[in-house]
Every structure is written in structure tokens, then in C-alpha cells.
């Protein structure tokens, strides 16, 4: 019994440790004060208003959506294609190839950022949406690869062989069998890619121009200039969006599972 109590307490402390920063910042989004500190004098929505009316913040939100959507599309397509390719057992250096695709996860963002800036400059893509989307895609692809590879590993290869034997050419096997079965993994990968793009700061600092200032980037710079509670409101927006997207994924996955 004491053992069980200790375990519960430990779990509770761990969770607290993980969410404490969120608990600290979230109430400040609803403060009426002009500085980002406790105590909260009274509650108000003025900082959300600021977020959606102030030009810098509004543009940052729109930029985040544009870049996030572009990154999600590109990373999902590329990551899924890579995962499909990595299934081929005859592929040379399959293990090293997979590691290569996961590399951006461990390489320091600063290193990637410098390299990316030099590279994009060479193609004249600095200070452009395309440049930022490409940069974000590089760090988002590993998440898609991990997620889709996991989903593909769960598919019985014989199901695809059966489809072939029943008269389906390779493209049809992919469209009617492989892709629908891998869909939960593709969806999670897409969400992870979007989330990665949303909170990516370092690469954005290196490659984005003033016109591609994203929400995360805007928070980062405004926290140095003035500690306005608008940052807390933006953080709230972030978390709310993440929770909503997470819920959508959980729901759609359970719906896909129910269809099985």
C-alpha cells in the first residue's frame, strides 16, 4: 500500500514538473496588467485583442499558418515517400539511409541554420516563404519518417501481395491498400510536422526575412524588447491549437480504427 502511494505521488510530481511552466504562463494571458508578472490585478482579454489587432502579431500568426501549412504538405509527402522507399529490403545501406533521414533531429539547429542560410542564399531563397518552408521541412521530415515507418511496419506484407495476386497493379495496391492502412501514421506525421514548423525559432532566425516573421519568432524577439503579456496570450494560442490538433488526430485515428 505505501508502495502504491509512493508511486502515485511520484507520477503526480513528474506530471507537475512537466506542466509547471504551462501553469505559470497561462493565467497571465488573461491579465489586465501591462507587464508579464504575478499577481494578476484583474482578468481581461485585452492581450488577445492586441494579438489579433496589432499588425506585427497578426502578420506573425498569418505567416505561421502559411509556413506551417506549406511545411506540413511538403514534409508529409517527402517523409511518406522516404518511408516507402526505406521499406525496400534490397536497398543498399538501408540502415545508414534511415539514420540519414533522422539526422536533422539530432544535429544542433544552429549548425543547420548556418548551413541553410549559406545554401539558400546561393539559390536566392533567403527572405522568402519558400526558403523558410524548405528549412522547416528539413527538420519536420524526420518526424514524418518515424511516424509513417512505424505505421508501414504494422502492415502485413502479404496483404499487399494478396492485392497484387487479385489483379491490382502496383499503383492501385498503393492507393487502395498501403496508403489507407498507413493513414493513421501519415496523419500523426502531418500533425508533428505542423507542430515542428509552428515552434521552430532557430532556423527561422537564420533564413527568414522581416516579412516571414512567424509567431514563435515574434514571441522570441518581443520577449527581449518588452515583456508584454501578449506573449502569454500567444503561448495560450499555441497550446490551444496543439490541443485541438491533437484531439482531431486522436478522434480521426479512433474513427479509422473503428472502421477496421
Amino acid at each position, binding site marked *: 500500500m505505501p508502495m502504491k502511494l509512493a508511486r502515485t505521488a511520484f507520477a503526480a510530481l513528474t506530471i507537475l514538473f512537466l506542466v509547471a511552466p504551462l501553469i505559470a504562463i497561462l493565467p497571465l494571458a488573461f491579465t489586465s496588467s501591462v507587464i508579464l508578472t504575478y499577481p494578476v490585478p484583474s482578468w481581461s482579454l485585452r492581450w488577445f485583442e492586441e494579438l489579433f489587432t496589432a499588425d506585427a502579431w497578426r502578420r506573425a500568426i498569418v505567416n505561421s499558418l502559411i509556413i506551417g501549412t506549406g511545411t506540413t504538405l511538403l514534409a508529409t509527402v517527402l517523409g511518406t515517400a522516404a518511408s516507402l522507399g526505406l521499406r525496400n529490403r534490397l536497398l543498399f545501406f538501408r540502415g545508414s539511409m534511415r539514420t540519414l533521414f533522422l539526422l536533422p533531429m539530432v544535429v544542433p539547429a544552429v549548425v543547420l541554420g548556418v548551413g541553410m542560410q549559406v545554401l539558400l542564399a546561393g539559390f536566392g531563397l533567403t527572405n522568402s516563404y519558400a526558403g523558410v518552408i524548405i528549412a522547416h521541412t528539413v527538420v519536420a521530415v524526420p518526424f514524418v519518417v518515424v511516424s509513417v515507418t512505424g505505421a508501414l511496419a504494422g502492415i502485413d506484407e502479404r496483404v499487399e501481395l494478396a492485392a497484387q*495476386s487479385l*489483379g491490382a*497493379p502496383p499503383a492501385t495496391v498503393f492507393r487502395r491498400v498501403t496508403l489507407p492502412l498507413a493513414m493513421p501514421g501519415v496523419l500523426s506525421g502531418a500533425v508533428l510536422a505542423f507542430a515542428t514548423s509552428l515552434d521552430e525559432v532557430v532556423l527561422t532566425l537564420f533564413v527568414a526575412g522581416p516579412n516571414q516573421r512567424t509567431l514563435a519568432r515574434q514571441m522570441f524577439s518581443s520577449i527581449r524588447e518588452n515583456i508584454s503579456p501578449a506573449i502569454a496570450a500567444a503561448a495560450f494560442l499555441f497550446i490551444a491549437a496543439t490541443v485541438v490538433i491533437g484531439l482531431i488526430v486522436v478522434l480521426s485515428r479512433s474513427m479509422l480504427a473503428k472502421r477496421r
Partner: protein
Amino acid sequence: MAEFIRFDRITKFYGPLCVVENLDLGIDKGEFVSLLGPSGSGKTTLLMMLAGFEQPTSGNILLDGTAINDVPTHRRDMGVVFQSYALFPHMSVGENVAFPLQMRGMGRAEIEGRVKRALDMVQLSAFADRRPSQLSGGQQQRVALSRALVFEPRVVLMDEPLGALDKQLREQMQLDIRDLHRRLGLTIVFVTHDQSEALTMSDRVAVFNKGKIEQIGTPRQVYDEPATRFVAEFIGETNLVEGVVEAVEGEEATVRLPSGAQIVSAVSGSVSSGQPVFLSIRPERVDLSETRGDARNCLETQVTDSVYQGDHLRVQLQNAAHPLIAKLGRRSREFPPGTRVYAGFSAGDCRVIAP
């Protein structure tokens, strides 16, 4: 009858490993042929090559006289049934069965009718809207079967389709598949490692060992006239006794055992006198009696153990030189250990096998 499928000197390597070696096999239209052998004997690989999932390293596969090596799987028109069922988990039972018909561009009304008939055939028409995961293993395998048959393929390939089912269900399915084969005149190539399954269902059995066919023949031939030691031991239980050929006369040979006893036995293949050989004697062909009977061959033995096994009595005997097992019908009297008995069997009940 014209030969329908022909494996012409097929060899298959996986890297340095030879899994099928220079193999020839012909299968007639409407025939049920089992590929029987232990795992790793190359039987499944051969089936996978016929389906087009694998390419032979060398040799040709002919279907109805034309080489199909370069024909991709989806144009081979063969129904494949896997041990793992391989149903589409994201489609209903009805959609699973409709899939091959959609691939052939049939109209909706025709597909509906055919799916219904195919599911009727396996008594599953009530389950058309269920997901495969909602069915039992036996039901899933019946769906897989009807999906493989619904488009009237030229050949039906089955890779250990009953391996995942329990014994009773397996025996029922064996009879069902045999019945479908006869009713629809299907050409079936059936891979199994279960010898009783192969004997039950097939017109002919090809016994595989180490990438080669050891023997091909009717169930009666492979059981009663094993050509090699491997076949004798793999199919059913047998007593293998070493001996030396003394004389060969037509279809029969006289073999001297180490104990000095002489046995007259039928011969598979060619042997010559002086050659060391094995004798295969099926346990159920051995009769025991306390007096020297009139059987052609008679060995003096002593009972060492006797086990009642319900449908038969299993008696272990010790001859001067080697042990022997006899399976007696359940009407047989008991033979307590220590009893001295004569083990008798006719020349046709044993085979000489060249080592």
C-alpha cells in the same frame, strides 16, 4: 491431358543460399498437387515464384505452354490464399471479395451477384458487411478462399492455408477445399508441411527436401512405395532397418539383416546384390503372433513395451539387432512386456530403399 503448369529447371538462390535446385515439375489442368516438405525445403519459394512474388534465378515457369517469368503478378490471374489470411483489414468482407472483380472492371450489378454467390459457397453471405477482424480465424480463411475463387482464376495457390486453425476446423476445411476442387474443377497447388493434410486432399504429392523433389506420386504411392529414406521417414511413421541385398528377382529383393534373418521385400528403384540398403516397414503392416505364422517374412522378437493409444495398440519390440515398432488394431490382444513373439509381414508391406 495436356500439362498446364511446368517448372522447367528452376533454380533459386537467396544470396549464396540455394533454396530451389534445378527443379522440374509438371501439373495438369484440374489437378490438386500438394508440395509437402519441412520448413526451408523450398516448397513455399516455388509457390511464390509461381505467383510472381519471386523471380527464379534461372529456369522457366510455363503456364499453358507460355513462359510467364516476365508476367507481373497482377496479370497472372492466380488466386492466392495465405496462412495469415491476408484480408484487407480496412474493407468489409463483401468489399474484400469484390476487390478482384473491381480490378477486372466489372459492372456493379455483376459484382454484387458474384460476391453473393462466392460468399454463399463458403456459407458466409450473412457476414458481408462485417469487418474481417470481427470474424473467427476459420471464417476469415473462408473469406480469403472465396476472394481467391470469385474471379475464376486459372490456378489457385495455397500457402499453408490451414496452418493457423485448430485441428478439428482444419480437418473440416480440408474436406471443404477438396469438395470445392472437385465441384469447380480447379487447378490447385497446395503447400503444406502436414503430411496427413497432403495425403487427405491431393491427387498427387510432391515431397520436397533441401530444394529438390524427392518423390512425386499419388498419396498411395508416396506412402506405400517411398522412393527414398527421407520420404519414408517424413510421411507417416516407419521402421528403418539396415541390411544388404542378397539377390534381386524382378520386383522383389532378398535382404540379409545384421541379425542374419532374410527378408523378401518389394523394391523402389534399382538395387543390385551386395548393395547395403534400408528396409522400410510400416508399423501398421506388422502382425504379431506367438507361433511362426505363414507370413513371408518373420522376425523373432521380444516385446519391450506396449502402449494403449485408444485407436491402436503400439508395441515396441526388440529383435536380435534392432528395435521394431508395431501398431495393432484395437481388437488385438495385449502383449505384455517380455513376451516372445513373431513379427510377420508380407513382401509387399516393406520396401527396399537405396541409401
